[in-house]
């Protein structure tokens, strides 16, 4: 059952991640990227930008923590000292000339970190996160048809401030409720270490802040980098289809140095297909066929085998006699090499 399942996942789920990352068919209007210090979202955002460039998608970056405009970003919106309403206005303003010249062009809006906005002291109580995010995807003007996808990064390890109203949901639960896809990022070397521990029924290790060691913010990321094998990001994807059915899958995104920026073929693979994560089993089977080597001859010659097959075992003989009550008889024919000892066999 497992191999059929895997090949099914290979075809369908790889197609899905390819669609999501390349923003085809607006498969996911709102993607939530959950990252941490152990695996920042920067490489994934770079991959989004790279694919958007290839398919000529207009990229806007709403910068809450980025200082300089990165390569490949068409519009850079700094958010310093701006109210949420101002940000929405500016984001739609930078797209106006593009929309006028090429109305069918798709659009990608990246938010590099939503946490500063959620933790801000200045944002008044009237701030409504769903309508703020919604206004990017569905602009107020009905005439302007925009095919926009929004990718929001949320740093999981930044603590949330206490809620203004104790009855309202936390921002992160609002975000996970709204998002059509949720991507959680893990470091590949950590995933491998945790799997190795689970395979031995040990408690999986934790890294960085979770170690709760005084003075440690980041765990060591490149413990395995020297081998060059465990590089990459593990993507845990939860996608909600329009039908409501959810898809869960784990992928591996190789580091950007492994492929050229113009690479068109899909580079993401299933995590289960990775050799390091799922080592091939063939080696064990081959080992089972081989005979253990020793100085004893453990095999049988042809003659020995024939004689062994010719032996009539005692219970065949016992079945010829009729009925019970005859049990306990010893069926034994003296051979010539047997030495009958009267004293021994008298009972």
């Amino acid at each position, binding site marked *: 059952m497992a191999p059929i399942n895997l090949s099914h996942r290979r075809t369908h789920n790889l197609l899905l991640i390819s669609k999501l990352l390349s923003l085809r068919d607006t498969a996911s209007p709102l993607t939530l990227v959950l990252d941490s210090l152990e695996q*920042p979202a920067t490489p994934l955002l770079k991959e989004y930008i790279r694919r958007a460039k290839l398919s000529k998608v207009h990229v806007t970056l709403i910068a809450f923590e980025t*200082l300089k405009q990165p390569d490949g970003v068409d519009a850079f919106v700094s958010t310093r000292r701006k109210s949420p309403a101002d940000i929405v206005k500016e984001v739609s303003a930078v797209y106006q000339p593009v929309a006028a010249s090429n109305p069918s062009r798709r659009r990608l809006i990246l938010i590099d970190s939503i946490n500063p906005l959620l933790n801000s002291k200045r944002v008044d109580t009237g701030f409504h996160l769903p309508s703020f995010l919604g206004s990017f995807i569905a602009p107020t003007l009905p005439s302007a048809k925009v095919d926009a996808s929004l990718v929001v990064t949320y740093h999981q390890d930044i603590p949330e401030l206490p809620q203004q109203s104790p009855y309202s949901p936390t921002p992160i639960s609002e975000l996970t409720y709204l998002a059509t896809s949720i991507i959680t990022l893990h470091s590949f070397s950590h995933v491998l270490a945790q799997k190795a521990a689970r395979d031995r029924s040990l408690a999986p290790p934790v890294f960085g802040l979770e170690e*709760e060691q005084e003075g440690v*913010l980041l765990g060591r990321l*490149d413990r395995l980098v020297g081998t060059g094998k465990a590089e990459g990001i593990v993507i845990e994807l939860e996608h909600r289809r329009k039908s409501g059915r959810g898809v869960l899958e784990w992928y591996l995104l190789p580091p950007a140095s492994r492929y050229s920026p113009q690479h068109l073929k899909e580079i993401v693979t299933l995590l289960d297909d990775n050799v390091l994560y799922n080592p091939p089993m063939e080696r064990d089977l081959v080992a089972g066929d081989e005979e253990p080597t020793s100085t004893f001859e453990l095999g049988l010659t042809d003659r020995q085998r024939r004689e062994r097959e010719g032996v009539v075992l005692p219970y065949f003989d016992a079945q010829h006699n009729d009925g019970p009550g005859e049990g306990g008889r010893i069926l034994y024919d003296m051979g010539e090499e047997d030495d009958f000892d009267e004293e021994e066999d008298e009972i």
Partner: protein
Amino acid sequence: MPSQPPLPPLLAPYVSNLPDSSLTLVSSILGATSNWLVLRFLHAALSSPSPNVAFGSDELQNGTKKKVVLVSFMRSYEFWRTEAKRLGLDLARLADKQQFAFIDGLSELFYAPQPTATSPSISPAGLGSSPRTTLPMRSPPGVVPGRSPQPAGPTVTGVRGNATSKQAEPGIAKKLHFSGRGLASLDALEKDISSVIEQQKSSMEDGDELLLIIDQPDLLLAATGPSMGIGATEMSEWITALQQHAHATVLTLATDAPLIHNASTSGGLATPIETEHAALVIGLAHRARSVMQLRTLDTGAAKDVSGVLRISRGGGLNVSEESLEEREALYFIQRDGGVKLFGRGES
């Protein structure tokens, strides 16, 4: 013990030649303070290239002239001057040459300045509001105790009289004063600091680089807090604004366990300072290019090891453009102020 080179060869690549608009985070705990590392940053930027500098670092510094603006919220100018002298840096002379500027965020931050702020003797009325400054490191005994709590730095010699010596206290380019509340007060501080930076920049040639070091800006957050309208978001915006003035920025922050871990483990019972501090430090680590974490030895105190330095890649590192080798090393601060940096098992 033989005297160490001022800049340990192991450390040199991490403290010199910081790339443009990069943020470096130095985290410290109570048992492992960061001032020696800040001094190494100062030394890497300010020391004039001499033939007997630690190999590997000298030829790199010939090309560009560096300037440093040091904003210190935790330690006085006297402290930095004395400590730098032990490394062979004469801060007073460098300030004269407009290569170095010190901004004092400690002594008068919450102290209303007198109209004649240039007078070195401060009226006794100010004593109550600035108790921290009564403990300057190595304050000269000639000062009348209790009457002049400010580290006036009377031992500084040398001819003054250039543009930076508007204050009577030599060597200090500006003293910060906190007034008002919320963003307006942060704006005022930003203006003060940026004016000094611009003054330094006015004498810069093409290719010169200005390094901004902010020592423990978390004091500002701890001393004000959400009740004054300043939280983690406002603080990191403030740092973003300052970053834009400088070539590279170095921040030191405290990462003692209660300030980092209480917010996530105590289940909503954390105090505002715990939550805000954790949000600030983790948020900045997401933006930083590299994070240098100082902590004490896990196994307890040792007489030849002062602590552990772990250098990790931060979330803001552009992985595709540059690589940063992560490493962990032990350090030992000798009695003469020299620092030895060595791997585990070496000496």
